[in-house]
C-alpha cells in the first residue's frame, strides 16, 4: 500500500530575522486539488512561509515537506509553478522566448504556444517583455507559472495591476487548474478574490495561524453583521458607537460592520438619530469583515 502525503506540509515552523519573529509555530497543509488562500496583513509572515516552502530560506525549527520531500529538492521543484509578487524578466526577450526558456526546465512542460493560448496571452507572444504594461507582465508571469504543468501552484498577489476582464480571465483559468487536480496556494490582499476562489482560508497574524476553514466557516466564526443604509449620518460619527467595528461610506451608502450583540441597539440608534434613513438591510458579514475583525483581535 502506498503512503499518501500532503503536497505541502509545514508543522511547528519557527523563523526569526534578528529580533523579529516572522513565523511562530506555523502549521499549514495543502492537499491535492484544493485552493488555499493564505491571508494576513503586511508583515504577518506570508512571504516568509512561501520562501520556506520554496526552499529559498531554511526554518529555525519545525518540519517542512513538499511532496513528501525536503523543500528545494529538484523532484519537488519540478512539480511546482511559482508566480512571485515582483520578479525581473529579461526585457529584451520576446514573451514566446521567455515561455520557451521556462518551459524547458520541466520534463513534460507545455508547448509554449499552447500555454500562451491557454492563458489568453497569445497576442503577446511576439512582443518584447520590456514593452508590456504592468498588467500584461503579470499575465505573462502567470503563463510562466503554468508552463511546467504544476501540481502545486504558488500565486502571490496574481491579479495586482490587472483590469477587471483580465482578472476574471485569470480566475477562470485558476478554477480550471483546480478542477484538473492542481493545488494552489494563493496569497492576496483582494479578499473578494479569496472569497471567489478558495476552498479553504488560512488567516495568519504575527507568524501564527489564527483562523482556518472554508469561507463560510471563517465568516460565521465571527459574531459580526453588516448593516447597509442611506443616511445623512457621517461614518466618523457612527464609527464611534459601541459595537461598530467599521463604518464607511461607499457609493452613497453607509456600510457598518457591527458586533452581533450590538446589532439591535445600533439599528435602533440609526433610526432614532436619522429620520431620513432608507434602504436599510442587515446581512451576515463577508470575508473582508471577518478578516478585519480577526486581524484586529490578534493585533492587540
Amino acid at each position, binding site marked *: 500500500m*502506498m*503512503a*499518501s*502525503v*500532503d*503536497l505541502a506540509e509545514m508543522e511547528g515552523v519557527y523563523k526569526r530575522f534578528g529580533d523579529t519573529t516572522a513565523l511562530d509555530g506555523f502549521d499549514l497543509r495543502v*492537499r*491535492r*486539488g*484544493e*485552493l488555499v488562500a493564505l491571508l494576513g496583513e503586511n508583515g504577518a509572515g506570508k512571504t516568509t512561509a512561501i520562501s520556506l516552502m*520554496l*526552499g*529559498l530560506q531554511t526554518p529555525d525549527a519545525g518540519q517542512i515537506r513538499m*511532496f*513528501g*520531500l525536503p523543500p*528545494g529538492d*529538484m*523532484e*519537488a*521543484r*519540478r*512539480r*511546482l*509553478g*511559482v508566480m*512571485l509578487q*515582483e*520578479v*525581473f*524578466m*529579461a526585457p*529584451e*526577450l520576446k514573451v514566446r*522566448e*521567455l515561455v*520557451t*526558456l*521556462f518551459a*524547458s*526546465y*520541466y*520534463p*513534460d512542460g507545455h508547448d509554449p504556444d499552447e500555454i500562451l493560448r491557454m492563458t489568453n496571452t497569445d497576442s503577446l507572444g511576439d512582443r*518584447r517583455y520590456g514593452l508590456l504594461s504592468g498588467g500584461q507582465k503579470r499575465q505573462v508571469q502567470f503563463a510562466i507559472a503554468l508552463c*511546467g504543468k504544476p*501540481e502545486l501552484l504558488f500565486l502571490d498577489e496574481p491579479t495586482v495591476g490587472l483590469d477587471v476582464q483580465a482578472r476574471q480571465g485569470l480566475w477562470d483559468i485558476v478554477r480550471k487548474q*483546480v*478542477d*484538473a*487536480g492542481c493545488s494552489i496556494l494563493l496569497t492576496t490582499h483582494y479578499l473578494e478574490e479569496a472569497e471567489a476562489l478558495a*476552498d*479553504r482560508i488560512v488567516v495568519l497574524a504575527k507568524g501564527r495561524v489564527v483562523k482556518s476553514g472554508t469561507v463560510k466557516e471563517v465568516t460565521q466564526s465571527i459574531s459580526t453583521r453588516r448593516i447597509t443604509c442611506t443616511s445623512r449620518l457621517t461614518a466618523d460619527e457612527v464609527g464611534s458607537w459601541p459595537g461598530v467595528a467599521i463604518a464607511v461610506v461607499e457609493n452613497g451608502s453607509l456600510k457598518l460592520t457591527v458586533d452581533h450583540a450590538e446589532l439591535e441597539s445600533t439599528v435602533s440608534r440609526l433610526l432614532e438619530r436619522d429620520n431620513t434613513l432608507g434602504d436599510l438591510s442587515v446581512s451576515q458579514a463577508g470575508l473582508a469583515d471577518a478578516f478585519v475583525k480577526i486581524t484586529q483581535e490578534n493585533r492587540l
Partner: protein
Amino acid sequence: MNSTVPELDTATIQRKRMSRLKVLRIYYLEAKYEFIRSLRNPGFGFPFLVMPVVLFLVFSALGSPQKADPDMRLGLFSGMAILGIMGPAMFGFGAILAGERQFKLLEFKRAIAMPAAAHLIGKFVCAMAYAAMVILVMIAVGLVMGRISLNATQAIMVGLVLWLGVLPFCAIGFFIGARASAHVANGITTIVYMPQLYFSGLFFPLPAAIGWIALFMPPFYLNQLVLGVGGAKHIYIGGAWFHVLFLAVLTVGLTLLTVKKMTRHG
C-alpha cells in the same frame, strides 16, 4: 476542492526525471537567450563588437611607428581585442547579474526547476561566444587588411589565448554582480573596467614612475601572453608561466569567493 483526483503517493515522487538531452537543452537555451539579449541591447552588444574593430583600423592606419613595426601593430591589435572581450564579460556578469539578483530573477529560478548553475553557465557561454565573435572578426580584419602579420599557427594561438583570456574578466564581473546592488553595479563595473584599460598599458606605455601599477592589472598579463604567442619579441616581458598563473589564480580565487557568497545568500 476536486475529490476525483488520486492522492499523491510517495512511490511516484521519483518519477519526474529528465533525460540528459533535455537538461542539455536548458543550458543551450539559457546561453542562446542570453546571447540574443546581448545583441538586442543597444548599449551592450553592438558597441563592444564594432568599437574595437573600428578603433584598431583607425589607429593602425595612423602614425608611422605603429604602421611600420609589426610588434607594435600586434600590440595595438591585442589591446583592442582585449578591450572587445573585457566589456561583455565584465558587464554581462557584473551589472546585469546584479539586477537579476536584486530583482529576484535568480531567486525565482532557484524556486522552480532550473538546474542550479544553468543561469550562470548560460551567461558564461554567452560571454565566450561573444568573445569568439569579436576575436574572429578582429583577426580576420587584421589579416585581410594587412594590419597584422601572423602565420596560421600564430593566428590560432592568438585567438585561443584571447578566448581563454575572457575567463578572468568573467570572474571579475561575477564577483561584482554577486555583491553590488543593481543601482551601483554598472558604475562599479565601469570604475573597475576603465582603469584596467589605462593602467595595464594596453594602448601606450605607462610613465616609468607608475609602470609598476600594470603588474596588478589582469589585461597586462593577457596582453603579454598574446604578444608572446604572436611573436612580438621586442615588447614581450616576463615568463609565460607567471602570466598564466596570475590570471588562473585570479579567476579561480574570485570564482570560489563568489560561488561561496551566492550559495549562502543567493
